[in-house]
């Protein structure tokens, strides 16, 4: 069930990303709905399928985006690893964890993309890339972190219902 439900949810999020989020830039950056969903999912207490969701999301994004296919996969894997690590440290404050992981994950994933593009020979000035793309995108991610966490939290409770002791 958790794996099957990943496909329609991540596909819908990808559609929203390509149609809406990518058309609402702040300077030259925009929010990453996929990253937010993966972070929120990985921070859920009872979720055991975060890694599978990460790989599925990375492959979907890699198929649609012009980036090399493995770049989103690796980026989202790193983000999920950060989420799992932070979850162990600040598990009593999941919302704080959501903000921390969103901030770090945005920087890591976009930094990875930038590094790959530079290695490929694409001219990307560091100052412009950070100031106009990465930081505005991170800000938008932080703004959307809380509502996305609330939605994913409800989803997690539906997929992994809490067992009531008799």
């Amino acid at each position, binding site marked *: 069930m958790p794996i099957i439900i990943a496909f329609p949810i991540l596909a819908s999020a990808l559609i929203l990303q390509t149609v809406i989020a990518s058309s609402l830039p702040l300077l030259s950056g925009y929010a990453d709905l996929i990253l937010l969903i993966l972070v929120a999912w990985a921070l859920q207490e009872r979720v055991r399928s975060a890694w599978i969701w990460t790989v599925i999301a990375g492959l979907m994004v890699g198929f649609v985006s*012009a980036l090399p296919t493995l770049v989103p996969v690796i980026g989202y894997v790193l983000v999920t690893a950060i989420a799992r690590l932070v979850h162990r440290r600040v598990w009593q404050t999941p919302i704080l964890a959501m903000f921390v992981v969103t901030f770090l994950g945005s920087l890591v994933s976009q930094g990875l993309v930038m590094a790959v593009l530079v290695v490929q020979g694409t001219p990307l000035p560091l100052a412009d890339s950070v100031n106009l793309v990465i930081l505005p995108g991170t800000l938008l991610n932080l703004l959307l972190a809380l509502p996305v966490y609330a939605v994913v939290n409800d989803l997690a409770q539906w997929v992994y219902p809490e067992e009531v002791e008799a």
Partner: protein
Amino acid sequence: MRNFLQKYWRTGAAGLIVIGVMFLALSGYLAPVIQVALDPVVAAQRWLGTRYLAIYTMLRSPGDVTALRTENEQLKNENALLRSQLIQLQEEQKDFEVFYSLLNVARQQPSNDYVAAMVIGRDANPFMRYVLIDQGSDAGLRRGMPVLTAQGLVGRIDAVTSNAARVQLLTDASSAVNIRLPETGAEGILVGSVTGDLSIDMIPQDVKVQPGELVLTSGLGGTYPGNILVGQVISVRKQETALFQSASVQPVVDFASLRAVLVVTDFRPVDLDPLIQSAD
């Protein structure tokens, strides 16, 4: 006779008085008297009629208010429906204008084959300036085909599936288009940037480039057809110590609001890889 007169003289006198009054009234001599007598009657009638109308209206008002409220709701719903239809028609009007302008492009260049496509999305990553269109290999699209609008060049197809394709925009940081400035005859390379700005690099130093000059594709390299409008020079950067000068370009196409594009399907980009490999 005397008994008859004694018995009916009062009746006769009353009759005479009545006849006399009627005669005077018909003659108009009693008009002021009649007016004075009727005025209080009319006033009383008016007073009573006004009060009755007020009471009647007050008793009937609940029914009127309910009917008015119902009618108001119906009119509001109808208004909302008409507004949504208006918005829908305005959107269809915009689509119509875009398609009509694309049709004009096809008419002006009848030697080329075109496939029209709608822009359905953008790349999920902000570093990549690509758009997704709703036509693919089933419609004859292939990788490398140039994409344009009524205004000018948009980019070229980067990847294709059966019914969708990804288009690399001119503003992408890794995009490079060979261009020429027809007024000066200069040639250069149009490159995008991470911010979406366009600039021309590698303009020879001995060429005098002026702001306002048009920028067209040159066709060199075989990746794009020649003589397609790209934009206009807005500023020139020239340093005496540099090998080349550069210029900023304002694109003719508004990439932020792309709705529909034309793909030139009868243009095959030249594959230079075998020549490069043999040179190595």
